């Protein structure tokens, strides 16, 4: 029924001493006390709690760790909403397995930007001797190693990692494993591992197959084979046939805590939309670009060409004319473009050059001065980020940039500069992923993503466990533009900022949402039609929490 193993190290050590025993009785008793202290006398309890000097986990985090160990048996998808402390949960599980001696060799794969943060947190909060991967020797030198997924999947690292066995593998931001044809997914699938934790707040972004691919890594066949899954659970790409059945199938492998279900002391959120009037020149440019997009959208849909560049352009021009410049210049080189469209684009470029000042930028700087405290300005675009940085510098307000492309050390440096020296952090989306900035409680959305989950990711940087002050969110929007609709939709209709819609990610994919928004804008004849269509869209989204709540 069980294998019986006897470890004979003590006998060997005694033999090496020629069976001559010596040693003090007092030390023998101290050693016994240490052994007695370190054994775990129950299968169910979380023994690590008494070994955590620097952290007091929240009840939902302790419950999650217990559930993963006792019920999900160490292979799980940790999919809490943003800001509930998934890292702490994963750390607790790791520590518990280490205390019990079930885990020694551990690999933690995270985005490059989070390697140092994970390493530091494991050392400081969990007293786990974790190391950040630095070179190809790191893989074999350390028991607990934190590495970037992108580095790990490249040789020579990949071959070394695949040649070892791991007691525990943790993958943070595991939505990067959503596609089973990618090298990310293949790497995790081929790794030899005992326990596996996949950590993500967004297990589904665009397609229900994504969650299937994640589950396949944890327990192949849990949701049947791909055909069975499709026939039993999917109606459309993003619509489950029977949400209850899917949820019940997922429950044996997934934990998802929601803010509203947990009695957590989150501070208040205050949201304010700041509506701005564009200058005459800015409005002329905006209208010219919108008209161009409408015309080009019809041409492209009739010839079945991609409308993606148009979505990008429409979103960019809502941010700043700087953000739109790269896409405009790329479009000018498009060989399919008609002569008239080419001419129109040239005129637009000229209009862009004639804009004398930038309303949103001026208002953002004013806002920073009024707030007189740490402030994060989020933009989706690199060009806008650079421009904002320049303008802040010109106005004498200290600002630092933060983005996904920075190397690890630079990210840490920027975070430290922001904490201790600068007033403003200007961050792009990718840069914001996973970093904790609880010391700041003011967020300006210079432009808004068209994807509600990304809005939540942004706010989650500051409005998370550990934030002690109320959080203030300012959404900048220019009147009579698409942006005004977007802010209205996200803030008023979907109630994105006060109430978190955790269910949205399962029901509606990001790309679907963006595509539907663009269709609404280009296909509607007038403002009333836009409002009516957005109303319908928001109702579809708002309906989902109630449905899911009933399912639970």
């Amino acid at each position, binding site marked *: *029924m*069980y*294998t*019986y*193993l*006897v*470890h*004979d*190290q*003590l*006998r060997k*050590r*005694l033999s090496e*001493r020629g*069976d001559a*025993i*010596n*040693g*003090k*009785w*007092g*030390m*023998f*008793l*101290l*050693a*016994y*006390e*240490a*052994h*007695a*202290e*370190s*054994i*775990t*006398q*129950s*299968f169910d309890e979380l023994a690590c709690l*008494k*070994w*955590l*000097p620097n952290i007091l986990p929240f009840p939902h985090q302790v419950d999650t760790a217990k559930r993963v160990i*006792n019920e999900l*048996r*160490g292979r799980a998808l940790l999919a809490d909403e943003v800001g509930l402390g998934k890292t702490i949960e994963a750390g607790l599980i790791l520590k518990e397995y280490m205390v*019990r*001696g*079930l885990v020694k060799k551990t690999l933690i794969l995270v985005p490059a930007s989070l390697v140092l943060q994970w390493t530091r947190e494991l050392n400081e909060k969990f*007293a786990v001797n974790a190391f950040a991967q630095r070179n190809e020797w790191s893989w074999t030198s350390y028991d607990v190693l934190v590495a970037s997924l992108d580095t790990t999947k490249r040789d020579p690292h990949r071959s070394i990692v695949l040649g070892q066995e791991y007691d525990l593998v943790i993958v943070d931001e595991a939505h990067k494993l959503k596609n089973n044809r990618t090298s990310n997914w293949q790497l995790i*699938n*081929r790794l*030899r*591992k*005992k*326990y596996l934790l996949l950590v993500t707040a967004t297990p589904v972004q665009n397609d229900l197959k994504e969650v299937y691919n994640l589950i396949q890594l944890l327990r*192949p*066949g849990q949701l*049947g*084979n791909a055909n*069975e899954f499709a026939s039993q659970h999917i109606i459309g790409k993003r619509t489950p046939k029977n949400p209850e059945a899917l949820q019940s199938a997922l429950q044996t492998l997934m934990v998802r805590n929601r803010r509203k279900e947990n009695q957590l002391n989150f501070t208040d959120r205050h949201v304010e939309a700041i509506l701005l009037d564009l200058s005459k020149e800015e409005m002329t440019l905006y209208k010219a670009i919108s008209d161009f997009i409408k015309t080009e959208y019809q041409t492209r849909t009739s010839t079945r060409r991609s409308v993606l560049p148009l979505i990008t352009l429409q979103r960019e021009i809502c941010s700043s004319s700087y953000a739109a410049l790269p896409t405009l210049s790329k479009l000018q080189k498009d060989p399919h473009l008609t002569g008239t469209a080419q001419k129109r684009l040239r005129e637009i470029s000229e209009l862009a050059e004639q804009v004398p000042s930038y309303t949103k930028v001026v208002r953002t700087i004013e806002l920073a001065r009024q707030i007189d405290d740490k402030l994060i300005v989020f933009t989706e675009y690199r060009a806008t980020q650079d421009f904002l940085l320049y303008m802040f510098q010109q106005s004498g307000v200290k600002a630092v940039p933060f983005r996904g492309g920075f190397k690890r050390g630079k990210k840490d440096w920027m975070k430290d500069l922001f904490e201790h020296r600068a007033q403003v952090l200007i961050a792009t989306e990718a840069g914001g992923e996973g970093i904790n900035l609880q010391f700041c409680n003011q967020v300006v959305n210079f432009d808004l993503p068209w994807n509600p989950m990304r809005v939540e990711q942004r706010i989650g940087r500051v409005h998370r466990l550990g934030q002690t002050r109320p959080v203030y969110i300012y959404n900048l929007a220019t009147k009579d533009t698409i942006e005004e609709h977007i802010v209205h939709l996200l803030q008023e209709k979907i109630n994105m900022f006060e109430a978190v819609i955790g269910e949205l990610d399962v029901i509606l994919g990001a790309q679907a949402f963006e595509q539907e928004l663009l269709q609404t804008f280009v296909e509607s004849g007038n403002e009333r039609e836009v409002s009516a269509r957005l109303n319908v869209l928001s109702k579809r989204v708002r309906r989902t929490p109630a449905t899911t709540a009933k399912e639970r």
Partner: protein
Amino acid sequence: MRNDQLYTYCRTYFSLVGATFHPADDFALAVELPRDVDKELTDRPFYWMWLETLRETPPPSYLYLLFDGAPPSPAFTALLPERQKPEHVLPGSYRLQKIQQSAKLRGSFAVAYERTDAPATLWPSVLMNVKVSLVSDRQKDELHSLLYSVKHSTVKSVDMAHWSAISLLDERPRTTRLVPLPIDFDEAFTRILARVEHELAHRDHRWAKDAAHRLQHELSEMDRYYASLDDDLRNEAEKQLRVEELTWRIAPRVEVEPVQVAILYRTEP
């Protein structure tokens, strides 16, 4: 362990390893470490390798430890060298882990004598502490204490609390005589471990039955899944890896590890 217990534990440890104590607050310790202890309590293998290669004598290391979470007194702070911060010793803290690791290593073996002032004959017994772990995808441990009488070749379970409470000596009392009974450690280990195995074999191992059943269930589900795939999608190497992982994770096993052994000389054989 409570703060006062931690303090007593560490104070006893430093005293046993021959550290030099310097004046300190209540619930604080300022100790100068002997070199071998320094090596065990600080993670500096390259530092020691370098010093030993160059045959250098390093300056002694000091530890400044606080146990009650309170800030140190001005007098204690004055003791601290420049840039040196005192360490708070708490359950699970790095320093305590190192001290306990060192204690486990140094306390693996012992010889102890019953205290008596009267003339007496002392008989040897072997005391062994054995860690038993019941392991599948979860684990729990037990610590067994067993005493092997060399004279009678018998083994019995004992309570370590009893041995902790009575005062044993590191030196033979002058009034006593030791029975020159040769101790065969192979015999002692075999006898004690056989007793542990016997005791374990007669228990209800529902946890192991459940784990074995769960493993079988998982393996058959795995078979069903791979059998349902079309030939071009079926990957035998992948299936084999998943099967090995399942067995590695779930298969029940009992691990027995002797962790300490001592010879006790007592008046009772």
